């Protein structure tokens, strides 16, 4: 490392440690989110800058390790939570989130959303979305399966790495997807797929990492994952396989808390969430579809992504009530 860089680094370090938070009198909006959203490559920084430019406030992030832990953290903190707004609740945990009774109505009109399904919830506001999809390397896998049934039924089909529905959002997504396509026959389908499931990981990160290291032909991820490889790495060989039964939908939600210190400010943030300023940071920041397409449209890296004919979905309340049974079914079908 060059000397100048070293000095700059040391200075940054000293400043960062000496001034943990700027001691201004501006109101502070505390935003709970997950780590990759607020992290170096996430859209959090852009969102913070853009909102601070218009709100006369300061945005302070508190990050949980992943979306799944946000609701748990809120439950733990209860009414003493410091959060004013939360960005990043997994739709499949929406029922649990609302059951905490901590959320206040967002008060935003729900028209003109780009979601493939109507959205009516008045407490939780969608801010981005995508489909679950199996991603593959087109250099290695020439003919990907054309449907979930194709993937499940072909004993010589591609190997997959998936996530555990007990610990990860995509894992739960696949569980529900299988259930949507196969109904009560889902356990048999899992049984057929089982020999080609290389492994079941704790979270999305491990699975995607294993896939990139060549451990499996396909990985359960998002339909928008290829956009990352195009946008950030200029690689076009990673693609999502389009399944003709339709794809299970994944929606990420934001909400404001009943206990927000400055409810007006929190409400302004909720309005900001659906603005172009926020939405245009999603595609290449969070690598998901924006909930409302910005006026400038989607970036070029999003061209050529698959467009499933049908969005599959269970209502959050149904997920809440049947998750245990689905999981047990899956465990019985895949236990070795």
């Amino acid at each position, binding site marked *: 490392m060059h000397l100048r860089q070293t000095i700059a680094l040391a200075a940054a370090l000293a400043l960062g440690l000496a001034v943990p938070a700027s001691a201004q009198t501006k109101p502070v909006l505390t935003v709970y989110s997950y780590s990759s959203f607020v992290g170096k490559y996430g859209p959090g920084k852009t969102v913070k800058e853009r909102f601070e430019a218009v709100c006369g406030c300061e945005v302070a992030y508190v990050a949980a390790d992943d979306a799944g832990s946000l609701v748990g953290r809120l439950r733990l903190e209860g009414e003493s939570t410091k959060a004013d707004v939360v960005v990043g609740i997994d739709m499949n945990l929406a029922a649990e989130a609302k059951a905490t009774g901590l959320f206040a109505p967002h008060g935003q009109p729900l028209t003109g959303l780009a979601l493939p399904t109507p959205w009516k919830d008045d407490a939780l506001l969608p801010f981005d979305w995508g489909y679950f999809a199996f991603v593959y390397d087109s250099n290695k896998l020439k003919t990907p399966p054309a449907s979930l049934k194709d993937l499940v039924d072909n004993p010589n089909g591609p190997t997959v790495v998936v996530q555990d529905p007990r*610990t990860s959002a995509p894992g739960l997504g696949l569980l529900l997807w299988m259930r949507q396509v196969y109904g009560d026959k889902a356990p048999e389908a899992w049984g057929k797929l089982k020999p080609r499931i290389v492994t079941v*990981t704790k979270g999305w990160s491990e699975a995607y990492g294993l896939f990139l290291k060549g451990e499996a032909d396909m990985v359960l991820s998002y339909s928008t994952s290829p956009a990352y490889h195009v946008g950030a790495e200029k690689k076009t060989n990673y693609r999502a396989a389009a399944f003709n039964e339709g794809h299970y939908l994944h929606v990420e939600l934001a909400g404001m808390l009943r206990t927000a210190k400055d409810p007006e400010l929190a409400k302004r943030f909720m309005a900001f969430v659906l603005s172009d300023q926020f939405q245009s940071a999603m595609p290449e920041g969070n690598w998901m579809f924006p909930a409302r397409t910005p006026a400038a449209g989607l970036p070029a890296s999003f061209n050529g992504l698959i467009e499933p004919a049908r969005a599959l979905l269970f209502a959050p309340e149904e997920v809440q009530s049947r998750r245990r049974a689905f999981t047990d079914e899956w465990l019985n079908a895949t236990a070795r």
Partner: protein
Amino acid sequence: MNGRLRGQLAGALVLAGILALVAGSLGALASAAGASDGLSGIGPYLVRILAFSTAQAALSTLLSLALGVPLALALARRRFPGRHLALAALGAAAVMPAIVVVFAVVAVYGRGGWLSGLLAQFGIGPAFRVYGWPGILIGHVLLNAPLVARVALDALARVPAEHWRLARLLGFSPLAVLRHLDLPVLRAELAGLASLVFLLCFTSFAIVLTLGGGGRASLEVAIFEALRVDLDFARAAALSVVQIVLCGTVALALHRAVARAPVGHTLRAAIPRPDRDHRGLRLLDGAVLALGALLILPPLLSLAAALPHLSALLDADVARALVTSLAIALASAGLATGMALALAGAARSARLVQRSGRAAALYDLAPALVIAAPPFALTAGLFLLVRRAVDPALAGYALLPLMNALGALPFAYRFLAGPAMAGGERYGRLADLLRLRGLARLRIVDWPLLRRPFAAAFAMAMALSFGDFGVVALLGGSELRTLPYLLYERLGAYRLDEAAALGLLLVLVAFALAYASSRFTDVSH
């Protein structure tokens, strides 16, 4: 207070603190508002998890001991260039974060790994599938055989110098050396070591899931599920109690099965071992060392693939996280070794002064209790306890070092309990006679014996805390960011290379710490 119990004061306080902490946080969790199905809804699921966890943990423990003990013996008998590096590699391997272990194992044994690449050279197809039992066992042995070797090597150095002279004088065969010198000191460590490894494997999470091939879980997964997905805190608490009771039973059974032999007295000196020149043994040790290197080195070396990404990684974010991690690691290592010393002192006093093996066992088992208590549940419970009094974000600054210290306590205790006991047996009466107590006694009587193991314990506690993700996952935030936290953040943002570089950085720091401490702990230099 009764004079005979005075020596147990500090340890008793630590013990009471641990018990109160575990009971308090689980109690808070259990009584948290909200509906709970308790354990009734998951009965068969639970039974399956327990059966599998017990089997995999038992097998992992056996294999780790089977490799670790011979490795320690071979390292005790042999001097070779790079021996310190080998010891440091063991220290680093023993504290690798689970996620790093997963990727290291896959890099070597996976479908696209080194092994299959090598086999393909000889025209052998993908005959080996790592996911499943092999993956779990390799992952656990990779972590725990080095731990066993490290602690056992330390124990072997406690054979008194006179015994080595006697062995040479009486012309002991290698077998007699093993039987009369090595095994008695190993035996004193074995129960504690075996239960430590068993508990670590029993509560292992990411390795069991990701390398297990699917459909498998440890109890910790069910606890995670209850906490994070079902938000059924009462069930999380109930499952934690099940885990604590089970692990406690195993630890107690091992404690009983392998009675502690009275330790000889310690006198470290560089005495050449008489069995060094035996030709058969030399071959055996060579084979054991080669086997150990073959199993442990490739996964460690596979991490070096991230080396080119290391320089690009270093920015203000990472530097800050590094400093934060180091500060937390220092604090928790200090706490962990302090608690371990207090407990070890109390166990010694119970055994030598009060003459109560039962009381001593209580202190011996306290660290085991800490491993058995799932960190997720403990942290969540503590969070509930403190949230009314303290700002939760601030609480993280205190809870994180405390929780990491608790996590490192069992390791620190394994390093310190043996030498502390030896110090008591050797100088205890003299110290009593001179009315040496408390810190003065520690400084004058115990410190010379404890200095080296203390350095090892401190380094390992630091490295463990440094690589911990489980606790920071719940407590961390944009303000409190550690290196493992950044690792997951980058992994979650598709940045596999940066995550790998962070993993390498974690292991390098652990290696440096282990290297520094092995220069302290090894008697041959």
